[in-house]
């Protein structure tokens, strides 16, 4: 789960990391008042869960409260890479002397947290890693010991930070690790961490990603989820306990198991080419009971781009004949005239197919293999698209 800049920085502040004490605004009027209260100049920053907002015109320096209001008016409602800006952060402007990077993430291969610093702040760390890897200093952290003081010094030394800033930098690094750990983050990043002309270190921009698996013990953070920033189908799916990701294609996919769900998406893309592809990732989990299939079907069909539906179910412990009955029951509950292809594999797959075929539902067909199923679903979607074009 991603946190907005303001949420991340306010969280940093709770752990003693210096930030500019800004205010959020949801209307131009609020932006005006925030700017007047804080004292100009201020920076008006779009709060949106995607990178590249600066280039899109989502960050502006305002010299007066009136200007802050004007910029907020332009930025609020702005569409940045498909996401609508609903909030701006009004921050006092800083006199920047130098920008550095400081971030903590989990190193999968090492199985440990890794803290990274770079002398090139304000640039994405991945880009620095590709273009100038020597600019990055790294320390792996023993999760039982935490970040040790000498490791923070190693980072400061590694990025050639002037000695006068070491103490402040070490304190920020230690506090960032405490924040990372206490928040169950998979990423806690200050970029840039600036040295001001007044010789202060300040977290100017921040980003945190919280481990979805840990939200059960982070109710306070779980509440910060911005459901406006995600498709409504994803919010519904989460409530129904279904793992769903909305994509841009036309074939609604309903699958049990995450790996098989990805594979099913890949197959629709393989046979669909540039035009046709998956409308979603969806894992209904084990069992495939009628109620869950119905809930998943409602979510898939809420996406108006969907032109055909592909079921791909491996009947492992749940037998395919039971799965087939569950699907038919769900179709009864959620009627749709879209073409649907069902592929069942595993225990009693032939019985399952017979149940589907004998139901004699005109828009429903079965397939024996994944290849056949994907091709059928692609063909149905292609026909529907062609018919739509013809009608125009």
């Amino acid at each position, binding site marked *: 789960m991603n946190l907005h800049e303001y949420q991340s920085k306010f969280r940093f502040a709770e752990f003693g990391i210096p930030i500019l004490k800004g205010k959020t605004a949801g209307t131009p009027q609020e932006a005006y008042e925030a700017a007047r209260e804080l004292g100009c100049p201020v920076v008006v920053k779009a709060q949106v869960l995607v990178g590249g907002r600066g280039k899109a015109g989502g960050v502006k320096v305002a010299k007066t409260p009136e200007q802050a209001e004007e910029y907020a008016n332009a930025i609020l409602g702005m569409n940045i890479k498909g996401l609508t800006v609903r909030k701006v952060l009004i921050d006092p402007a800083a006199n920047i002397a130098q920008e550095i990077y400081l971030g903590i993430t*989990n190193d*999968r*291969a090492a*199985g*440990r*947290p890794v803290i990274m610093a770079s002398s090139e702040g304000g640039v*994405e*760390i*991945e880009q620095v*890693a590709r273009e100038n890897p020597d600019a990055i200093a790294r320390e792996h952290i*023993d*999760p*039982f010991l935490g970040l040790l003081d000498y490791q923070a010094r190693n980072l400061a030394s590694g990025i050639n930070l002037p000695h006068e800033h070491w103490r402040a930098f070490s304190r920020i690094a230690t506090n960032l690790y405490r924040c990372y*750990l206490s928040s*169950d983050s*998979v990423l806690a990043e200050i970029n840039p961490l600036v040295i001001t002309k007044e010789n202060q270190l300040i977290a100017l921009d921040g980003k945190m990603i919280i*481990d*979805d*698996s*840990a939200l*059960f*013990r982070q109710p306070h953070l779980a509440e910060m989820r911005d459901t406006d920033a995600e498709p409504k189908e994803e919010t519904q799916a989460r409530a129904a306990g279904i*793992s769903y*990701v909305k*994509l841009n294609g036309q074939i609604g996919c309903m*699958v*049990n*198991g*995450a*790996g*098989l*769900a*990805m*594979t099913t*998406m*890949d*197959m*629709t*893309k*393989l046979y669909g080419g540039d035009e046709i*592809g*998956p409308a979603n*990732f969806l*894992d209904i989990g084990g069992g495939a009971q009628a109620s869950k299939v119905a809930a998943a079907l409602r979510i898939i069909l809420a996406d108006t781009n969907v032109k055909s539906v592909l079921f791909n179910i*491996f009947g*492992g*412990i749940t037998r395919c004949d039971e799965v087939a009955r569950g699907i038919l029951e769900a179709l009864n509950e959620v009627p749709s005239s879209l073409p649907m292809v069902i592929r069942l*594999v*595993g*225990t009693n797959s032939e019985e399952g197919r017979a149940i589907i075929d004998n139901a004699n539902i005109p828009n429903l067909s079965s397939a024996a*293999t*994944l*290849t056949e199923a994907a091709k059928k679903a692609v063909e149905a979607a292609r026909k529907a698209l062609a018919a739509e074009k013809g009608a125009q």
Partner: protein
Amino acid sequence: MAILVNQDTRLIVQGITGREGSFHTKQMIEYGTNLVGGVTPGKGGEWVHGKPVFDTVKKAVDATGANTSIIYVAAPYAPDAIYEAVDAGIKLIVCITEGIPIIEMMKVSEYLSSHDSRLIGPNCPGLLAPGIAKIGIMPGYIGTPGNVGVVSKSGTLTYEVVYALTQAGMGQTTCVGIGGDPIIGTNFVEILQMFEEDPETEKVVLIGEIGGRAEVDAAEFIKANMTKPVAAFIAGKSAPPGTRMGHAGAIIEGGEGTATEKIEALLEAGVRVADNPEQIPALLK
């Protein structure tokens, strides 16, 4: 001979009285696994499917000589179950549980690095050594004894491939699900090494997915160390970057962990890579 399990395997089930634990205990016994008991704190003295339940792993080990454990314990309690198994001297621990916080797994991983136990998983379907043992949740009928070793990050996608192999008349030595989490106990490379050393395994199937670089490490290992032919499938070619696809570990981060980079690394290592999992049996011929 299979890898990881053999005739000396003595299995206990942690969380044996729970719904999942009890259901799969029955399935594992019916498959013929040498399941000697289980553990649920507070339920010591009870019996599940004819097997004794103990309050602690230590007591279960003392009474039954267990050397392997399977964990069906809910995510908030699963790390504790792993530590308990390690400290009781269990040598092979398989953890099915999905949704353990990453920070807890980093601690587990650190603890394991200084102990003599191996963890498979978490968030995995476990192991199936056809004809010998089933430890986990894989449906037993999908496999048949033979000479193919299968290692995978997935559940149902693995069943799909194993079932296709069985139907094509190609049996398996062992099918290992290593799990779809970012931090797991045993990675591809370690299982590949076991398959390379196992005299009965002649061919290997690797099933990976987007996220991390375990498949790239596997490719480097295969290129440098493996003499046996390997076929592979990587799921998630059509997945968008920055979005988690079901498994906690299945995410392209900062442009890294794409299916394309993994496929290229595997092809470069001489691995036969399938576009479609249904091609796997043909690629092994």
